[in-house]
């Protein structure tokens, strides 16, 4: 059972045929999901086009509010400042980088494997006069060739599910982050008992459904994610389990798809694709309900042994969603 995360210092390692093969496979498989017309995703996502877990203050909350609250919560955890330069690994349609640029004045780079997503982000950035602050690059996570220590903060939201070798990814993120920089990992995991079965070659129906839908799915356990972080010089500052928030999020997406059937099927996507998403969201919700899929936000700091530890917030007050503290 290979669960040991590798610590690769300063990697820029597309020097391995197996890795090259993996990159080539991902570049074909992953965009099949995300290169669908943005209008289709817009038909069920909120206005920020965040295709990941939102954050609900109450069970009846709107998707619009919860979507923005998730972005705010993430920004608070990262303690965003105006002069921050941010990397968003797997930026989707740019929800977080737009939020960081528009609400905090940050500069931000996003990576995605989807040409369609990058085109939309860069077009919107130009339309909103943000081209000097926002950019999306079509880049595999193993190929991030930015100079070392380029970023003050790094975030990856809803993307680790596509990453097979977290050790390799986090090693690169560690190199790209300046010393003492913050790294927020937001993503789905599976309970260890399920992960154990997957590693033993026992496929669950959830594995099949998710992989079929996304093209590539790697469902790590939480401790594997944390192990990979710690082995690449990150200390975990905070962990929040947001599984119930994700179930509520997908409930909202499903409601919107069903309510919008006539317009979506008539004008945006074939019925077969529409029904595929209905089935996927239903199974997704079921998977959360049955504790087969979990969702987490993990906040980390890049550390160096032997260097003086800075003052850090003593409480979680600054990362409470609507606290007054910045």
């Amino acid at each position, binding site marked *: 059972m290979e669960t040991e995360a590798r610590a690769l210092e300063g990697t820029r390692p597309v020097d391995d045929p197996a890795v090259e093969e993996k990159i080539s496979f991902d570049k074909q498989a992953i965009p099949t999901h995300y290169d669908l017309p943005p209008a289709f995703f817009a038909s069920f996502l909120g206005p920020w086009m965040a295709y990941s877990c939102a954050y609900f203050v109450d069970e009846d909350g709107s998707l619009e509010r919860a979507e923005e609250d998730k972005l705010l919560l993430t920004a608070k955890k990262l303690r965003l400042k105006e002069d921050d330069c941010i990397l968003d690994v797997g930026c989707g349609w740019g929800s977080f980088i737009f939020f960081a640029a528009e609400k905090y004045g940050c500069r931000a780079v996003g990576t995605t494997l989807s040409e369609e997503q990058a085109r939309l982000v860069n077009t919107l950035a130009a339309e909103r006069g943000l081209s000097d602050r926002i950019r999306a690059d079509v880049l595999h996570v193993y190929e991030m060739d930015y100079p070392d220590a380029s970023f003050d903060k790094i975030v990856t939201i809803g993307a680790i599910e596509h990453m097979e070798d977290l050790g390799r990814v986090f090693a690169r993120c560690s190199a790209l982050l300046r010393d003492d920089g913050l790294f927020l990992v937001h993503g789905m995991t599976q309970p260890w008992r399920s992960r154990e079965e997957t590693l033993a070659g026992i496929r669950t*129906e959830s594995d*099949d*459904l998710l992989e079929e839908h996304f093209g590539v799915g790697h469902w790590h356990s939480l401790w594997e994610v944390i192990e990979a972080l710690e082995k690449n010089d990150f200390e975990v500052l905070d962990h929040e389990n947001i599984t119930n928030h994700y179930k509520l999020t997908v*409930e909202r997406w*499903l409601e919107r798809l069903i309510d919008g059937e006539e317009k979506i099927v008539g004008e945006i996507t074939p*019925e*077969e694709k529409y*029904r*595929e998403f*209905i*089935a996927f*969201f*239903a*199974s997704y*919700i*079921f998977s959360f*309900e049955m504790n087969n899929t979990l969702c987490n936000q993990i906040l980390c700091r890049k550390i160096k042994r032997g260097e003086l530890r800075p003052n850090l917030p003593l409480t979680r007050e600054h990362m409470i969603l609507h606290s007054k503290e910045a």
Partner: protein
Amino acid sequence: MEGLTASYIFDHLAPKFIEDNPGFPCRVNAVVSIDILGEGGGSWTFDLTDNPRVYRGLADDAKCTLTVSASDFYALLAGGSLSDCLEAFKQKRINFRGHLPTALRLERLLVSLAKDPAIAEHSRI
């Protein structure tokens, strides 16, 4: 469908499963109806709330109502696979009203019924 009837499944097997698995209704905690169309069909409702029971007819307050042809129903039942049911939905062989994820909570019943000798035998016909 010779030898296997919807009545055998809903009036005998399903109630027995519920009786033998008292934790199952808590896991579902909802009312789910199923409308099986064509020869060998009929309508049944699983009320898996306070007083768990299976009864004939559809419920107005069902959280989800599934509609499927009798031939698809028996084939999917014999398969006992949630993935196959979702595939059938994608192909428009199953339809639903209400909240589809709730119906998925019946998975354990589906898996159990598929193991019944009469249903397994039917799948070989």
